[in-house]
Structure formats: C-alpha cells, structure tokens
C-alpha cells in the first residue's frame, strides 16, 4: 500500500509544550488546539464532543486552568504549558483525581471522562475542599450523556480527600 501522507507544503513551525515535552507543530491560526492535539500529535485522550464549547469533552489544562480545546486557537497555547489527560499520571502512579474516578466508578462509556477529570483537577487547584454546589457549578459545562453526574461529584470529593490526606498539592 503506497504511503498516503499528503505531500506537505513547507509550513512555518512553532513549538507547543504538551505534557512537559516540546512538539513542533505548524503555525496556523485557524487550527484549534483540539485539532492539533488529536490529529497532529495523536493525543487522542482529549475528545471531540461538539465543536462548540458545550460539552467539555475536549478540556485540557493550559497553565493549570481547564480550557475547551475546541474553542482555543492553537496560537493562544504557544508558549504556555499544556497538560492533557495523558500527562496527569506519574508513570504508574495515578493522579489523585484519576484514582478517585476509578474508586468511585465515576464513568460508564468513559468518553466524557478525560474532560471531567481535567475540569476537576482545575477546580481542585483553586478550591481544595469544594462543596457539592461548587462542584456542580464548576463542572456544569461538562456533559455526561450516560448520566454519571452523582458518581462524578463523589469522585471529586474523594479526590479532594485523597489530595489533602496525602498532604500533596493538586497540580
């Protein structure tokens, strides 16, 4: 089978820092961060759900804050630190929020989970002991069509305890 990668025109490149590694990606103001992550870097843990910023499946951390990658032009992420779901665990050691999602059984199909975990990490970074109301408000932009919201709230509360119990700060 012949190779089918397009005969690429020479393109101006820039560096994107993702999960602690610099990647060379084409400068193209039209391109969303989601497109670059999934299609160029093949980091497919970040999901496409709606393309209009309504579902939160594409959330990633930019300088520690959750943003919707489908609504973020890649240019805005240049020079900043991007963390995707693939970058949260330290080797075999799951991030407390990931651990809490496992323990709470906080997913069904799992497709929204990356965005949920990223949103929760971002929330816990600014509020280490969020109330249920805070969790609801902070995560209302994330959809779970399987209806796992109560488990997810439980997972975020567990993560909050795991983080404080371990004495470690949530990155």
């Amino acid at each position, binding site marked *: *089978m*012949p*190779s*089918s*990668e*397009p*005969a690429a025109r020479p393109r101006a490149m820039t560096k994107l820092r993702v999960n602690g590694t610099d990647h060379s990606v084409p400068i193209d103001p039209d391109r969303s961060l989601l*497109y670059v992550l*999934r*299609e160029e870097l*093949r*980091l*497919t*843990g*970040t*999901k*496409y*759900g*709606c*393309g*209009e910023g*309504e*579902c939160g*499946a594409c959330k990633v951390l930019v300088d520690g804050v959750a943003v919707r990658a489908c609504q973020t032009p890649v240019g805005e992420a240049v020079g900043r630190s991007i963390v*995707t*779901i*693939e970058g*949260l*665990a330290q080797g075999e050691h*799951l991030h407390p929020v990931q*651990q809490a*999602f*496992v*323990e709470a*059984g906080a*997913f*069904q*199909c*799992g*497709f*929204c*989970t*990356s965005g949920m*975990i990223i949103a929760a990490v971002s929330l816990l970074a600014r509020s280490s002991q969020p109330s249920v109301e805070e*969790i*609801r*408000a902070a*995560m*209302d932009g*994330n*959809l779970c*069509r*399987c*209806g*796992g*919201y*109560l*488990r*997810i*709230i439980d997972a975020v509360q567990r993560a909050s305890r795991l983080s404080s119990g371990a004495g470690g700060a949530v990155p």
Partner: protein
Amino acid sequence: MTASPAVIPFDLLPPNERPYFDRFGNGLVVVLPPRQPDPSGWGAGGPPHGGAWIHVGEDGKARAFIGKVEVGQGTRTALSLLVAEELRLPLSSVELTMGDTDLCPWDMGTFGSRSMPDAGEHLRLTGAATRTFLTELAAVRLSAAPTEVELAEGTAKARDSGRSVRYGELVKGLRRVELVPSDAKPNPPSKWTRAGRPAQDVGAREVVTGNRRYTSDLHIPGMLHGKVLFPPSCGAKLRSVDLSRAQALPGVTAIHEGDLVAVAAPDLRMAFAALKALRAEWEATPQPSEKEIVEYLRHHPVEGEDFWDMVHHETGDVGAAFGSAPVSLRETYTTAYIAHAPMETRAVLASWEDGRLTVWLGTQTPFRAREAVSDALELSPSNVRIIVPPTGSGFGGKHTSDLAVAAARLAKAAGHPVRVVFSREEEFTQAYFRPMAVVDIRSAAEQDGTLTAWEFHVLNAGASAARLPYRVANQKIDNQPSDSPLSQASYRALAATANNFARESHLDEVAARVGADPVEYRLRHLADDRLATVLRTVAERAGWSPRPAPAASGSGRGIAVGLEKEGRVATFAEVRVPEDRHLEVVRIVTGFECGAIVHPTNLRSQVEGGTVMAMGGALFEAIHFENGRILNPSFSRYRVPRFRDIPPIEVILLDRPDLPSQGGGETPLIAVAPAIANAIYDATGKRLRSLPLTPDGTVP
C-alpha cells in the same frame, strides 16, 4: 494496528474446524452452540442466537467470547465476573472478547436488555462446563476422585492428598474442543463469591488515563478521513452532483455510487473542504412539521416493521364495561422525538487487505453490520470482519451500518484505509430518533375506585410496557405503527417510556377522580407481587404519606411503577413549583429489581444514569423540526441533563438471588417521567400529558 490475517470467521465453521489453537495457543476450548431463543422471551421467533466459547490456555487464563458488545453499559465487567465465578479465577485472569465477528459467536445485537439474561446465561453454562472438564483433568493428574477435587484461584487441589496443580499446567499440550453438555450446572447466585459483589470496571485504568482507544481515536498508517454528503432536509432526493471540484483538491477521492456521495482526504480539514466543493442539486418535497405531527401520525398508519414489537390484547368485554361504568376517563398522552446524542458520535474505520475488509465500528449490531457491508460490496461474509472498539455509548442509536458501507466504499476507491466520524450536527441530523408516541387511553371504574375497563392504543412508538401490570377485568390494548416523517428506530427504553408515562399518569388521574391515594390505589390493583414489593419499599424509603387529593401547595410528590423486560421499577419524585412556575426536582427515590444482581456497582450506575437520562426526555429534550429540517441539531440548542439538573437520587437495589438475572439498562428509566408528572400535579393541580413536561423549565 493492522487487520487480522485472512481467516474464516469462527461462527461460520463447525466447532471442531475452528482454528482456536492456532490463534490462542494450546488449551481447552468449551463451546456452547447457538441456541433458539426462549419462546417466552423478548427475542421469541428470531433466528438461533447467542452461544459462547471459552478457551483456557497454558498461561492459566480464560478467554471468553461472546457476540454482544460493550458500549458503555458495563457488561464487559459483569460478564467477566460470571466467567470468573464459574471458573474460580481472579477477575484479572479472565479476558472477554465481545462482538468481533471473526472470533465471536453470532449474535443478533446488543439491545432489549438481553446481555445479562442471554450472554450472561450462556457464559455461566459454558463456564460451568469448563469447570467440570478442568475438574476431570485434575482428577486424573492428581489421582483423585473428581468429587475430591476443589478449584480455587486458578488452581485445582485434591482434598485428601493436598496436592495441587495450576490450570495452565492441566491444559499443557492440550488441543481439545468440547461442547457444553445439556446438564451443565452453573453455580447458583446464592453461592456466588465473585459475582454479586462490588467490583471495579476492568478497563478503568485505560479510561482515566485517556488511553482507551475508541473508534474515533483509531489511526492506521496511510489512513484518509472521509465525509459523506447528506441531503439538506429529510426526504430530499439527489438530482445531480458534480465531483470535479472536490477531485481537483490534492489527495482527495470523491465517489458517487448509488445513493452514496462521499469524499476522502489526507486530513480532516481537507475532507471538509472537499465536501464543501461538491456541487449537488437536491429535490425536496414538502414534509410535515412539528405543529401538525400528531394529526399526521394519526392519518398515516403503516404495517409494522422489524423494530416494532406488536401487541393486540383483548380480554373481557370492554364495550359493555364502559356502558355501565359510574366513572370513566379518556385522555391522550404524547412523547416527543428525541435524540440519543451519544458523547461519541458515530464512527468507523475501514481497511482493505488482500481482498478482505476489516471494519472497526462503534455499533450495537456487529453481525448485522457484517451482513450489510458484505451485501453492499458483494463480498462473502467470510471476507468481512467487524471489530467493535470501546464505544462512547449507544442508547439504541448505533444499530445502522450505512456509515460502515460508506467507509468501505471510500477505502476501496481510494486504495487507503478511511475513517469517517460524524460531526455533532451530523449526529443530530443523520442518525435516527426515538419515535414520537401518541397514546390514547380510556378507562372505567366503580364508585369505590375498582378499575373495570382499560382501553389503550399507542400510535407509532411500539408495544413495550403497553400491557397492564394491574388487574382489570376488561382490557383492549393495541399499537399502530405510523409513517414517521423523521427517521426513527431503536432507543433505550423506547416505547416503554411512552407507554409507562401514559399508563402511570392516567392511573394517577383515575385515583384522584375516585379520591384514592396513588400508592394504595396501585397496590390495590397490582397483579405482580414482585412489583408490589418494589413499590412498598420505595414508598417507605421516600416517607410517603397518603394523599387522596393534590395538595396544590407548590410542593408535590409523585410515584409511578413499571414492569418491563422482566425488571421491576418504582420511582418517587418530589418537586417544587414556586410562584414563578419554575420547576425544581428536589429528590428522586427509585427501587429496581431484576433478579439476581451480578455486578451491583455497575447496576447502581445504570439505574442512576438511566434516571438522569430519563429526566432529560421527561423535562426538556425534544427534536424540533419544520418541513424536513431539524431546527436544533447541537448541544446549545438541544438541551440534555447537566450537573445543575440533577437532584439527589437514592437508588434501592432489590437483590433476588433465587431468580434469573435480567438486564438493568432500560427499565429503570420508565417510571421517572410519570413520577415527575404526578408530582407536578400534586404540587399545582395541573396535569401535564406531553413529554417533555417543561420544555422551557416552567410549568405551564
């Protein structure tokens, strides 16, 4: 990732000719041949289905194969627990392959809550037989009577001598295929030690680390991205199309084969550009709109199609009973078209290798997809392999195979693998919907409230849960399919949601008319003890206090029951409707009984999640359409439940280890809408008879 070498799919070969050992190494294989469905069951009259096989290898692991698929409903872990239970293995030593048409037994599809009663039972039988063969092998190896051999944690041990041998040792060098004997005896649920206990999902780590690969995540070297040209409105016919501008784009392939017009391009953005470059002329015909839909469906009856279950049930003399009744009531209830809106849109990847086609497809019906693709491309079914990767939910929405056919045709024309993933807008407009339902009910009762007649007619939705769980002497129940202007088909708890909403709302209306308490009134008429138990349990947990008439105090409580697919549910809802009429669901208590519980952690998730999904259809989900156009094809215009919508939901699971395990994915949805409608009535005195109840969030 590459396609498999050419093989004849296992299900198309007799058990002894299947290359189990070439594929999985030496060992013991035990096969349950496909079976005729239980004539009393949901799939009555269909082709033989199901079957299972289990391979125990020299590594001591059990590989089990089943034709059902996992699309997020948690059956992979539940079914694996049953295999672990029968084989006395840790869960980590069980590998379950689901829905791979090269390797798995033929299955009609994953729908109708059949995974636990069918695949679960098949794996239990196959597991029990495997255990017996392992015991016999161990008896010979350990020079002990089979009755003296004990299996535990992957090891066989002779009770008297204390000698033991691992399963892997027992099957070393073995290449033996056995059939499940008719007297195979699965471990009864009352003796379960692994199944029936809380367990973590077997794929949890991949999910939380972002490493689970869904179909839309797959990538093969050389892969192109495909897009299909769809009509601008339902029913529009293609008059002409000019592919030339698309074909002129670098690396783009454009095809027009039969009804299919599609493009493939080296990257997704180029694929969208190619789609835009197609010049198509369409001929649209006027289509009925939302505002006239009820009358349209009433006037366009059709013969039933495959997905409609039909009911025509008549007992007693309904006409005579109405003639003499002191109390009678006639009302109509409707439910809207709604979308599945799975988080992962429909996705497929097709790849040809040496004339054989492999299709990775997020589907609930892989074997039907094999048939559809092989028919469309004029291939032998043995030259098509469907693999079902982890799928971002289905809810009855992933039954069709058109996208697989499109990807296969594109891949053939382009000479490269092609992936097609629906955009969210395509997902909303080019899939199919839950059918709208129009339900007419007429009932009669004695002065003391005793129901004497029940006439129930459901239009367009289907027969599920149309039958009465109540004792009524004179009944006439039937359904009538209609010519739906919108594409419609399977949906999680499809007709059961509509029929249960209508029945449980109407029953509440009759109870109010005769001044009876809704719980007492149901218990007085219930013909099913198991359902009565669920209702009593929920009423007690919810702190139900009798209310013969609505309080209309702005705060209300409602209750409803449902019996469908051998599951029993009762749901209690408490609502607040303040002066501004803005509805708040304050609390839900729901009880569910589906026989012996296999995987309580997951069942609880299914009941909670199903309740949330049902709240969407109950309160605000509706597809809006006008003259063939879908007006709200996005999450910003089609509202689904969010965090802020969810009240505390208390789930009570009633375990019945003495009864066969039934599915839990659908029935927990069906009492939610009527419970809320009944609570709104209690709060306001206003009876709402159409779903969604509060499209703009307020009680009208």
